């Protein structure tokens, strides 16, 4: 077969360039938006993804990890009765009001009271062991690098949270929070900072299992007992997903992503289809001649669709290269960007779908390739 579609694409690349750019930028825009949203909202589950617990136990109906309520501490013994559970650890979440030495006014902080032992589950992946060990000191706190300016404090300085004096003993990284600032301290310190009299037990219990792959089954098994007051369980991955989804949809960011996807699709498809239509119109007499010679309309349509496919594929290639460069740039500047396989696949589907729709639209202008019009 003479590769008409590809040969034309290469020979007349200037004609197809706008379509490739349109497809490429549509893809890039969507890719970066998804990566940013996933990055920003992914930080809402850093408490879960940064820890090594397999199962989380918390108050029933909790919609996001930042919205927990205290549960009865005796639930821990119920959980430990399950033979699959290796150990259980408490996690106390306290909403605090920060008053720093700098001129920062009040800053709302999320205090995470964690077990400072070296083998503690909470933040085991996000906190260096040396920093964790320093939390054992009373009133010691660790704050994230990204919040230093916000809190107006430096290492070794003191501030107050909920009126209680605390001292910054370390700086962590990668614990950026959404809508506030993460402050890490020991469980003991957190209890001192907690001025809510209804908080009687931990906000969450974290369980590690002998076989982490059983997390879903164990989470289901541990539910249902009411003997120790209300609680429910999630596998860590489920709870992380629930937390991210809550923020995505509660803040409208998810709707924003979908809205932009729609706009990107529309604008991209309009430009791409116009370019392809112009390309078809530019060759309409040649197509008509082929049809006069008996080459079927179906075969001509395939040529147009193939061109659309290549426009999409090349646009996607450009978007990927640029996207990777931009994401590396973003990472180096502490901008939270995350791209996972489903999101990348969604972008590919969007871009190729855009190209396909444009190809179908351009195919319609093949109707003008009527060989009878060549006879004047």
């Amino acid at each position, binding site marked *: *077969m*003479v590769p*008409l579609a590809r*040969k*034309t694409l*290469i*020979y*007349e690349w200037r004609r197809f360039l706008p379509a490739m750019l349109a497809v490429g930028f549509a893809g890039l825009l969507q890719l970066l938006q998804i990566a940013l949203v996933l990055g920003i909202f992914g930080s809402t589950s850093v408490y879960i993804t940064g820890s090594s617990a397999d199962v989380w136990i918390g108050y029933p109906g909790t919609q996001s990890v930042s919205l927990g309520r205290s549960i009865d501490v005796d639930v821990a013994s119920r959980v430990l009765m399950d033979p699959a559970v290796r150990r259980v650890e408490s996690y106390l979440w306290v909403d605090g009001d920060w008053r720093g030495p700098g001129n920062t006014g009040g800053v709302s902080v999320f205090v995470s009271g964690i077990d400072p032992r070296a083998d503690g589950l909470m933040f085991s992946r996000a906190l260096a062991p040396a920093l964790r060990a320093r939390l054992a000191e009373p009133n010691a706190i660790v704050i994230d690098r990204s919040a230093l300016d916000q809190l107006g404090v430096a290492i070794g300085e003191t501030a107050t949270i909920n009126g209680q004096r605390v001292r910054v003993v370390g700086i962590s990284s990668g614990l950026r929070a959404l809508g506030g600032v993460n402050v890490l301290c020991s469980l003991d310190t957190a209890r001192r900072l907690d001025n809510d009299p209804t908080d009687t037990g931990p906000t969450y219990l974290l369980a590690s299992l002998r076989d982490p792959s059983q997390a879903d089954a164990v989470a289901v098994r541990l539910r249902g007992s009411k003997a120790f007051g209300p609680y429910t369980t999630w596998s860590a991955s489920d709870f992380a997903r629930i937390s991210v989804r809550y923020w995505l949809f509660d803040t409208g960011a998810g709707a924003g992503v979908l809205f932009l996807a729609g706009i990107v699709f529309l604008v991209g498809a309009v430009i791409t289809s116009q370019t392809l239509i112009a390309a078809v119109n530019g*060759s309409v*007499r*040649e197509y*008509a*001649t*082929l*049809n*006069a*010679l*008996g*080459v*079927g*309309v179906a*075969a001509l349509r395939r040529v147009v669709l193939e061109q659309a496919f290549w426009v999409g594929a090349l646009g996607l290639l450009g978007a990927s290269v640029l996207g990777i460069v931009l994401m590396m740039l973003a990472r180096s500047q502490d901008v939270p960007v995350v791209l996972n396989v489903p999101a990348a696949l969604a972008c590919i589907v969007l871009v190729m779908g855009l190209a396909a729709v444009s190809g179908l639209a351009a195919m319609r202008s093949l109707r003008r390739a009527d*060989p*009878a019009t*060549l*006879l*004047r």
Partner: protein
Amino acid sequence: MMPSISAIETAHTPAVQAENVSKAFVSGQQRTQVLDRLTLSINAAELTLISGPSGCGKSTLLAVLSGLQKVDSGRVRALDSELGQLDLRALERFRLQHTGFVFQGFNLFPALSAFEQVELPLNHMGLSREEARRRAQRSLEEVGLAQRMRLRPSELSGGEKQRVAIARALAKDPELLFADEPTSALDSANGQMIIDILHRIAHTHGTTVLCVSHDPRLVVHADRVLAMEDGRILSDHRRQTPPAADHGTSS
């Protein structure tokens, strides 16, 4: 009635027949009768020329006889097929198997070499890759472009482009070759060469060549000249003496 013997083997056998064919175009309130109860038969293996002033309906006649347009009334029979009874697909198949076209504009794809222009329609005929290439090669050699096969249209002259277009039609080995004003965009030397090639195709390949033109140079080379006016055939002249030996195509 169509004869049962092959049209290619026997000259002066109708390859295309039109019977009481009428065709009108309506634009708004205006109705223009382009073909008016026209009856005609085109003999096989001849170069038939339809001439006439512009607007006389000669191009429409070509479109109707080649199955590119439907008639309002009457019948068109080409080879063994009743064209009016074929649907769009069947007409495409008929054209693929039996017809070649040469148009006034050369209509070549800018991106393809001369060789690829000729090979492309052959790909759709179900020929093997080797056979398609062999035919493309042979056909381009026949129109004198053996040395220019790798060139794109932008590197070819007008006459060479039209020869590529003829090779594209010829490579299909069509029984019917339709040409619409094939020389009108060319200078006299190139026009002459195209006429010679068309004439030779009719006589050496036994192809029925139906050519529409107002180019007076073509008249002397045609086996038969039909003069048209206002949708009717005015005169039908046949050349008495057999045509002189073919002119060479290479300049």
